[in-house]
């Protein structure tokens, strides 16, 4: 039993079919619990007031926006090195999800920034990096749409993903250099240090993060299965035309 067995589309489809309902229920459960807890049962922050409730969507969305790109990078590398079609299709399936998460992080950030910093948008390094990340997602999705041959499209987008990752990292660094920011540092990892995230926010935030992760995995599986079927359908239709 090895991980590579899941590169077989049939095996992947069977496993996905078994996992999907479980994951969907878990994702929905975690999201509902975390968001309801975060929205209704957390105290206001003494500085930020009720806006702190935005934390529970802003932080998980931002985390998963970056992690989704990381997953696409790994999947692209697997495709380019080992030529497993499922891997390429998983990368394709993940891109719109990552793009949506990036958009959510940007929009909730704007709603949060408006009362806190007095502006919808600030050319802060973190905000700017996310805007650039959004552009990378846009280009990646557009390239998938534009190339007709599926294998060529998978190769080209995989290459773009790798080169894009390098440049996204460079941009992150360049943007930091270009402007110091208003955005506060991440407080999740600051347990035991000064100015930590309060315990009252910690638990619902972790549940929300788990919810976003589960939602991402479930959606990637669902969309990958869809992509595999689209391929199969295309083969069948081509055969029909020939017959």
């Amino acid at each position, binding site marked *: 039993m090895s991980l590579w067995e899941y590169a077989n589309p049939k095996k992947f489809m069977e496993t996905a079919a078994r996992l999907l309902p479980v994951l969907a229920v878990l994702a929905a459960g975690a999201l509902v619990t975390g968001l309801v807890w975060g929205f209704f049962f957390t105290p206001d922050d003494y500085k930020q007031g009720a806006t702190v409730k935005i934390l529970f*969507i802003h932080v998980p969305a931002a985390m998963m926006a970056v992690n989704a790109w990381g997953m696409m990078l790994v999947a692209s590398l697997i495709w380019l090195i080992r030529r497993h079609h499922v891997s390429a299709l998983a990368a394709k399936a993940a891109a719109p999800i990552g793009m949506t998460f990036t958009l959510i992080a940007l929009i909730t950030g704007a709603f949060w920034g408006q009362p806190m910093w007095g502006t919808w948008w600030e050319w802060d390094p973190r905000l700017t990096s996310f805007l650039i990340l959004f552009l990378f997602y846009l280009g990646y999705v557009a390239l998938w749409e534009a190339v007709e041959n599926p294998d060529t499209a998978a190769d080209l987008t995989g290459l773009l993903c790798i080169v894009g990752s390098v440049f996204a990292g460079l941009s992150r660094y360049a943007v930091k250099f270009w402007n110091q920011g208003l955005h506060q540092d991440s407080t999740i990892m600051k347990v035991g240090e000064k100015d930590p995230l309060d315990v009252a926010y910690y638990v619902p935030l972790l549940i929300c993060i788990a919810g976003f992760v589960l939602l991402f995995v479930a959606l990637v599986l669902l969309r990958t299965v869809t992509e595999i079927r689209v391929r199969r*359908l295309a083969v069948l239709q081509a055969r*029909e035309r020939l017959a």
Partner: protein
Amino acid sequence: MMPELGKYAGAVLSSYGVTLGLLAGLVALSVWRYGRVKRALTEAEKRAGR
């Protein structure tokens, strides 16, 4: 039941609203396409199996 959001009600509510809207849209789109493709494939396989 509704928590006191004070002067930040607009920001918080619209954040939650937009997020839920976007996520619901993404899920609905994915599920809809899943169902459509599945049906089309079953039909094609039936025709091919004949």
